[in-house]
């Protein structure tokens, strides 16, 4: 039973603090994804857990063992690297067995474990090859195999899919998920790709500039983002943000936009918006929560289309809303072209409100 | 915890310096200390069996005001250096030919380059034989072509000896220049030529506007090697002419050797060495200035 | 099989071949360096000459020095054994008849056995 606990973990490189007292409790068997833009400290945290970076302050425990001082090999972890980090001069078999040899396991057991891992990952036929004779996806499997054979308590993944092309990435994503179900361990997975985070995670940890911005299930971070940052980071195409003010009396409340136009607020929502009357706000609208008029209880707008991007299953329309570039995702429509007016209703029920100053959800 | 880290750090530092120590020792023994020692020696009267005595600038005065051989070897070194462009030009032509996509270019390249790794002493002996007054191949060809009635004793003539040695030296080094230029040529992206062709540049214009400018670091590198060569080309001279006849082929380096190890005047030789080094550093500085610090620009090779 | 295949690179093959050749050559030398010179001495008209003195000289790059002398038997044949040279001169002399010209024989190694195909031919008047 090994969860991972981070308590007030700080990392400084010289005078430069990159991780500011992070607290994080990861349960046994949980699949946690650390996500954030580059430079947010997610890889540093992972490397501190692995023992590749020293922990400046705070402590990290795996199970009930504080591992700050332990060498990587004694931490009962395994790690999959972004560039796979396969030893180019060793065969696949040797790559898998290298760590076990270092642990001085008996040869027979090593062979057993390697073959078992190879079977799980379907790489048995490549065991005699050198890494450079393998395709990207195969190398990725070997890298995972090297982690599996160690039978660790905690799996660490450092952006393992970012070197693969789009199609393979989707496929490997599924395999990692399956693997987690087969091998039943705690997984900490670092990525900058929010789709990976959404699809894989039991819990997502959104990081920004060395702070945890939000922790929650995929559903939570998607539907109840804490801040403009999280809202903008999770979801593609990204959420639209429009600055506004709630103005007018009870019953006649409207959101006044920067260009002076107003979005009517339906009576049912008067109370929710009314609380923030006369404050600078940011209205967040996900692209999918636009509807073609007529219909819906939302506010109505009729902007002119700038750009049309048909995706097949959907079509994206880009237009200008009170000085902000806004994108709406619609069912595939034909006949509309740039310059045409697009009569839309905004599903105000599904919108998010943020304080313009603090960028936190209100 | 901090203690453990510091201990680990100390161990690492020990390892680093332990790894550096042998190389540093060798460089100290054979480069740094000798250079300083030379500096000291050049201001002293000294021989292996005499205690040192301060000499001031005596040796330098002697050298610059009275020593004709020093000046002769100085000019010979300069001439040697000035001959580098000839070799580079040859090498450029060969490199351009070898760079064309023809069959067997690797064979050609190997043959042209083959004279470089040959021991310089052997090169000297080979060329001495070619220059032989009576049965040397060169004299035979000259006579067959009717260009000279009698054999020319190339290496014994004060007119021909230096050019003759220079030819041998170019023969040896031209393959090396060629390899450097060829590497430079192959690093020029083909797309540049294609773009220039589309812009309507003629072959000559492409050569002038693309090849030459982009090859400049390589050509510069060849010059540097040529300069270093003229300072260090001891073996060839020693074997072919031993500086003769009457110092016609004396270079600074052979003169230093002669003064130190044949005449036993270590102190005077040290002064010569210091002047030689100053000359070298000056040239290196000049070269760096002229190239705008491009000396390392061929890194990508 | 696979274990040793790494030995099949050009360096091993080249140097291996040289080593084998050198070993074979030395083996050949070991069996043929008894320093035996066999030959015949004939007179101006081709008849075998008995009792002629055959002088073997060593020739180095710098000097020539007489090293061994033997006398021919009735059939005009002679055998020199145990010479240690790689470049020898042979000369036969019989004062009553004359002397053969000094003939040079170059050998591929020291003390190589030498069997003269052509006899040493004495010429009248020469010494």
């Amino acid at each position: 039973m090994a969860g991972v606990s981070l308590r007030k973990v700080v990392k400084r490189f010289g005078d430069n603090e990159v991780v500011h007292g992070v607290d994080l409790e990861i349960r046994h068997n949980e699949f946690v994804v650390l996500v954030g833009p580059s430079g947010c400290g997610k890889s540093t945290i992972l490397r501190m857990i692995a023992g590749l970076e020293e922990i400046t302050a705070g402590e990290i425990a795996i199970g009930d063992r504080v591992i700050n001082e332990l060498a990587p090999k004694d931490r009962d972890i395994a790690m999959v690297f972004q560039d796979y980090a396969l030893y180019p001069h060793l065969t696949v078999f040797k790559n898998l067995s290298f760590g076990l040899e270092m642990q001085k396991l008996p040869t027979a057991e090593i062979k057993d474990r390697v073959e078992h891992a190879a079977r799980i990952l379907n790489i048995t036929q490549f065991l005699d090859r050198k890494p450079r004779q393998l395709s990207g996806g195969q190398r990725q499997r070997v890298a995972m195999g090297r982690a599996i054979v160690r039978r660790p308590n905690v799996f660490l993944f450092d952006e393992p899919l970012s070197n693969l092309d789009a199609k393979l990435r989707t496929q490997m994503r599924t395999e990692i998920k399956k693997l987690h179900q087969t091998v039943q361990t705690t997984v900490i997975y670092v990525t900058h790709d929010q789709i990976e985070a959404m699809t894989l995670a039991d819990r997502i940890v959104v990081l920004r500039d060395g702070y945890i911005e939000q922790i929650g299930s995929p559903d939570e971070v998607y539907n109840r983002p804490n801040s403009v940052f999280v809202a903008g980071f999770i979801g593609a195409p990204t959420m639209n943000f429009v600055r506004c003010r709630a103005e007018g009396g009870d019953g006649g409340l409207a959101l006044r936009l920067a260009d002076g136009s107003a979005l009517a607020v339906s009576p049912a929502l008067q109370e929710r918006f009314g609380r923030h009357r006369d404050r600078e706000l940011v209205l967040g609208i996900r692209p999918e929560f636009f509807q073609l008029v007529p219909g819906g209880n939302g506010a109505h707008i009729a902007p002119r289309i700038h750009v049309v991007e048909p995706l097949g299953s959907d079509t994206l329309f880009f237009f200008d809303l009170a000085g902000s570039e806004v994108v709406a995702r619609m069912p595939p429509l034909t006949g509309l072209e740039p310059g045409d007016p697009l009569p839309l209703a905004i599903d105000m029920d599904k919108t998010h409100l943020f304080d313009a100053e603090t960028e936190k959800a209100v | 915890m901090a203690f453990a880290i510091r201990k680990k750090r100390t161990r690492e530092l020990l390892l680093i310096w332990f790894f550096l120590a042998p190389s540093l020792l060798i460089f100290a023994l054979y480069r740094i200390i000798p250079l300083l020692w030379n500096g000291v020696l050049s201001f002293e009267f000294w021989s292996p069996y005499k205690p040192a005595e301060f000499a001031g600038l005596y040796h330098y005065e002697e050298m610059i005001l009275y020593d004709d051989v020093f000046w002769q070897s100085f000019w010979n070194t300069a001439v040697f250096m000035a001959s580098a462009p000839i070799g580079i030009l040859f090498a450029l032509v060969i490199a351009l030919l070898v760079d064309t996509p023809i069959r067997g270019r690797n064979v050609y390249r190997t043959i042209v380059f083959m004279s470089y790794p040959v021991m310089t002493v052997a090169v000297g002996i080979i060329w001495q034989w070619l220059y032989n007054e009576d049965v040397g191949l060169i004299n035979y060809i000259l006579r067959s072509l009717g260009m000279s009635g009698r054999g020319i004793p190339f290496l014994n003539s004060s007119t021909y000896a230096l050019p003759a040695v220079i030819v041998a030296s170019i023969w040896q080094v031209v393959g090396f220049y060629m390899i450097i230029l060829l590497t430079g040529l192959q690093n020029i992206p083909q797309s540049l030529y294609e773009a220039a062709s589309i812009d309507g540049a003629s072959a000559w214009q492409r050569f002038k506007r693309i090849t030459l400018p982009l090859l400049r670091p390589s050509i510069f590198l060849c010059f540097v090697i040529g300069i270093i060569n003229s300072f260090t080309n001891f073996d060839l001279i020693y074997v072919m002419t031993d500086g003769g006849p009457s110092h016609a082929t004396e270079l600074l380096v052979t003169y230093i050797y002669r003064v130190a190890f044949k005449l036993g005047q270590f102190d005077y030789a040290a002064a010569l060495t210091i002047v030689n080094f100053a000359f070298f550093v000056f040239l290196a500085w000049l070269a760096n200035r002229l190239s705008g610090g491009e000396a390392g620009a061929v890194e990508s090779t | 099989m696979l274990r040793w295949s790494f030995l099949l690179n050009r360096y091993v093959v080249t140097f291996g071949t040289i080593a084998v050749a050198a070993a074979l050559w030395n083996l050949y030398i070991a069996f043929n360096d008894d320093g035996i010179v066999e030959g015949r001495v004939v007179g101006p008209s081709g008849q075998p000459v008995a009792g002629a003195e055959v002088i073997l000289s060593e020739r180095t790059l710098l000097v020539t020095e007489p090293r061994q002398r033997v006398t021919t038997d009735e059939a005009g044949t002679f055998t020199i054994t145990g010479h240690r040279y790689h470049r020898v001169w042979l000369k036969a002399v019989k004062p009553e008849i004359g002397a053969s010209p000094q003939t040079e024989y170059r050998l591929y190694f020291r003390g190589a056995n030498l069997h003269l195909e052509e006899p040493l031919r004495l010429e009248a008047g020469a010494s």
Partner: protein
Amino acid sequence: MTRYPKWAIHLGLAIICTLMLIPFYWVLKTSLTGENIFSYPPAILPENPHLFYYVDVWYSIPFFRYLVNSVVVSIIVVVGNVVLNAMAGYALTRDFTGKGSVIMLFLSCMMIPFQVTIIPAYLITKELGLLNSHLGMALPLCSTIVCIFVFKASFDAIPKSLIDAARIDGVPDWMIIFRIMVPLSQSAIATNIILAFIWSWNNFLWPLIIIRDNDMQTLPLGLARFLTVVEDTTGALYAFCIMVLVPGLMIFLLAQKQFIAGLTSGAAKG
């Protein structure tokens, strides 16, 4: 780029190659036939070629002894170079105070040509009692700055994650060097071996200065001495010349790729 007819290029290259090869040919021919000073014109093709000049050389000088000396010195130099340069190159990939000064020191040492230091270097070697010894000949060449930087570049090119992976696999630091970094720096090692071999094999001035014993002569020394001892028209000299050339050329032809790569990388940085 320019479209000259192929035959013209071949012709040009063939002429150049002939010019480059003639000196080799002429010496090879002389070594097989000798040369008669009094016969004119010299024969272009070898007449009655034989190998006896080679036999003469073999017996008239201790050729084998010279060969062994050359080989021993070269081995010391090659081993010294690879080990010491790899160590120094590795040290330079780590961070430590004074790293900048060490690199500056190395770079400025590169500016001091060995020729400039021969006199005190001779005196130092004498003090160390290494005159007339293999080690004395080899020591100055045992570490070369150019190759230190070749190693540093090669180590730097190894992905950091590979080292991390090894640490997670539980490889001790010192073993990472041997199990991971060295096997991945094979081309740097090959470059260094070839360069060090050629440098030491062809080295002339330094042995000339510190070797007095006949027994310690290396091949180039022997060759230069042979030149002064025997008449230069005997053919034996040229046979000796060929015998000295062959090992170097053979190594060059075998390892041409590494050789050229090493020279160009060495030259670019030197």
